[in-house]
């Protein structure tokens, strides 16, 4: 066990090193350079632009820039070029906002997908199964932004309530009111965020259930004369759940990725939107920091799911 942890830690650090180089190169390969000023404004001279380049170390060769950059990141000194604020602080602020969206979205996904998927599996081929299949494919194929717009327009024109942002703007409320107001503003984006997840996950649950239901031990349980509920929910479901345990580890990177589209449409001040805006502005420190942190999360996520797998399935020895 310890040997496994040690080995995997070393592997992951090496991977991280390569990720850092590759992401640094990709960001610099993109055309265009960051600047705090608009190059087409006649008031700004070439000289001012040059001084900005110097300030950002952009006049240095790439490998020096790489060292400068990761030194700053690892010592926590890296600042955003757009507003001169520390990158890590910015990420932390945004992370807190994305977190709620992530938690609620995940809750909705996981609480809804299981009943839907299990029922579909039990009533395989029936009307319910077919209509959920249809719905699932619809949800997967409909573009997220389109779905979001339709939902927003519907809610605003029919209910006359604000839905954008984290709370109703211009009205300060306290206590329970405040909590419920926040909850309402969380609801639409997290439903939208969850929609795709529900579609995929419920299909996955259905397939898992079907596979387990065809196993001999389920047939035995049925033959024993157990009640169908007991067969489905105790014998079959438990075994079908196994692969999902590992999925918990893999949703971790979703935390930092956030959702660019949903966050932008709902003007949710989250990680995804920040990363997206940083890319548009060529704000290298922010792009690279988000990239680096999400790489760490991916590695930690796979590590956790490996561990979980070991815990739940005693047959597996790594």
């Amino acid at each position: 066990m310890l040997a496994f942890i040690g080995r995997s830690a070393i592997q992951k650090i090496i991977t991280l090193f390569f990720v850092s180089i590759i992401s640094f190169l990709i960001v610099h390969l993109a055309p265009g350079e960051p600047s705090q000023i608009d190059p087409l404004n006649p008031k700004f001279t070439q000289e001012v632009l040059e001084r900005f380049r110097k300030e950002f170390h952009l006049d240095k060769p790439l490998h020096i820039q790489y060292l400068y950059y990761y030194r700053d990141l690892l010592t926590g000194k890296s600042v955003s070029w757009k507003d001169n604020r520390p990158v890590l602080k910015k990420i932390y602020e945004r992370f807190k906002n994305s977190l709620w969206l992530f938690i609620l979205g995940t809750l909705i996904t996981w609480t809804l997908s299981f009943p839907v998927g299990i029922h579909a599996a039990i009533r395989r081929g029936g009307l319910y199964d077919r209509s959920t299949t249809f719905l699932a494919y619809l949800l997967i194929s409909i573009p997220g932004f389109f779905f979001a717009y339709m939902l927003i327009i519907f809610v605003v024109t029919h209910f006359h309530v604000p839905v954008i942002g984290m709370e109703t703007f211009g009205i300060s409320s306290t206590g329970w009111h405040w909590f419920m107001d926040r909850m309402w503003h969380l609801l639409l984006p997290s439903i939208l965020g969850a929609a795709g997840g529900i579609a995929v996950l419920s299909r996955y649950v259905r397939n898992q259930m079907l596979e387990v239901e065809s196993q001999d031990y389920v047939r035995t349980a049925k033959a024993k004369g157990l009640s169908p509920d007991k067969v489905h929910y105790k014998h079959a479901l438990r075994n079908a759940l196994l692969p999902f345990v590992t999925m918990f580890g893999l949703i971790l990177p979703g935390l930092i990725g956030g959702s660019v589209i949903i966050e932008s449409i709902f003007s949710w001040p989250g990680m995804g939107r920040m990363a997206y805006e940083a890319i548009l502005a060529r704000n290298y420190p922010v792009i690279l920091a988000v990239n680096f942190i999400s790489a760490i999360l991916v590695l930690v996520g796979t590590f956790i799911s490996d561990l979980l797998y070991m815990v739940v399935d005693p047959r597996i020895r790594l």
Partner: protein
Amino acid sequence: MRRILIAVPTLFILFLLQSYLWVPSYEEQGENPERLNEFIEGSIGDAQILNPVLSADSASSGIESKVFEGLIDRDEDLRFRGRLATHWEIFEEAYFYVNDEAWIPKVGKKDAQGVVKLLRDAIKARIRENAPLFRSLGKIQRVEALPARSFEFSKKDKNAEGKKIAVTIRVAAPPRIRLILKEVDQELFDHLSGLLGREYFSSFDGARFIDILPETFSSKRSAYARELLPATENNPVIVFHLRPNVRFHDGHVFDAEDVRFTYQAIMNPKNLSPRIADYEPVKAVEVLDPLTVRVVYKRLYSPALGTWGMGILPVHLLNSKALRQEAMHRGLDPDKFTLRQSEFNRRPLGCGPFLFREWKADQYIVLERFEDYWEGSPNYKRYTFRIVPDLLTQEMEFYAGTVDGYGVQPHQVERLSKDPAYQSFSGLSFGYTYIGYNMRREPFKDRRVRKALGMAIDVDKIIKYVLYEQGEKITGPFVKQTDFYNHAIEPLPYDPEGALRLLADAGWKKGPKGWLQKNGKRLQFTLITNQGNNLRKAILSIAQNSWKHIGIDVRTDVLEWAVFIQERVNKLDFDALILGWSMGIDPDLYQIWHSSQTGPNQLNFVAFRNEEADDLITKIRQEYDHERQVQYCRRLHEIIAQEQPYSFLYVGKWTAILDKRIVIKEVDPEGKPRYSRIQPTKTGNYTFYFNKWIKLPEVPRFEMEG
């Protein structure tokens, strides 16, 4: 188990949905007095840095205009009016070196005293036969001779091997004459040569008066002389008289030191201020007393006055001592710490009508009214700048009542302007869209071709179908609602036949396959624009199509912004492009149209070169008299319209929508409030009286309405 699996999600979803009952609807918000006292402005992007000295984006400058106040700004008619300055005077100090070798007509060689006497006599004599000279002499208030003086000057310069070494220059300057003029006169020395002789100024040889060490640099003698001993010098001076008892938001009294500090902050190279070019012509900013500032300029530069609309920073919070303290406090290196790193930029403090309260990045910026504002505090208690990065959701939030104003898109105006709940405004913006031709290349070297290309495009149709009528034709580079714009110039007619005739004159005739050609070469070029602007993309296709119709083989390309600018525009590698300029009110066109600005990375990338235009551009820059500036501008406009270096397309209209419940509230002398409808000023600025706006619980009825 089965029940749990069904009950838990159902209850969970129900709990989530009931939160709807707690959210205030549009109607409920209208009843909330707190909400009525707040103006919420929706914006696509966040501000970057809230410091007028450092910021360069429009979101930041919008906030800064509310938190900070400049010495002056522009009134309803775009004329300057005093803000932190109550009034100001502009005059000129002019200098020239006595040229004792020059032969002055009728009187011969003269020394300093002789020249002074000559000038004084001429002023008294009122020589009317030379009208320009008479005009210039009439402006002179004082003439005096400054004695000869010697000084040493040292600088670093490159020697023959390209190494930088110190050079010492000893100057024994001859006596100099100082003239004080009551107003700025760019033709002063021109006219004075009518008195002192045509060669008096040009024949002055400064090189005679300098010694250079080491001697190897003697070859640069005349270059140094031009720098250190210019024959003539114009120093315009602006004296600002400041408003007494104006306070910053922290109660500190504003005075002349704040003005000087703001200037120093811009010029400090460590601060990397993007405004440095505006203030580079300033020679000195002197504090005469706490309420008087004197700004002396190195040379004639008429856009100078406009630059003082710049927000004034509080010196007591940002002087070097305060910055050092902040650096120590935050554990940073005080020697590397500059204004750019200061927390001030995220919680600014000025003496404008609103004071800063809170900034949540990418969410909102909250300002509150400043009760001690010198002009009377605004009606709104709060101003909130809210970031909603999506155009459609901005509109939705506007419907839901949580945004009061936002930049409406043309197609949204269509549906909103008919709604009785809203009032709409529109006006011309300060910018235009054009097709620019690279005049270094064939076939654009020929004016007839450029004109023909413009005539082949139906701009009216572009305005109708691409802009939904939210635009107007434009014929030249000035802001259309200013006097500088020459309204006598007719826009190019849409006339494809005429275009063909012009092209035929230029030698382009229809070939066998219907393409125009000259000497066997097809008329062929590439039209490019940047990615991300749908209007420009639409124009790209329209132009391509219109030109194809008359037999021109046009390729098009849409490039990512950074590539477009850096690889094509800056490197001058393009045939024709679609772009837009956003303009200031000031008519200075030097960077975009002067022939000295045609190199790589410069803004005259189409290579427009015209001697008369160059001369006018320089004159406009140096002219302080509005009427004469207008004359020069109209002529320049004419030349540019004739030459057609661009096909000027249109100037866009901005539109704004407000809830009808927002009105202007004024209090009459008896203390009774009077409400009136918001009216845009003549130039179309509807927010001009923003400080008097307020939102009422119901749509008001005005007496004047039938």
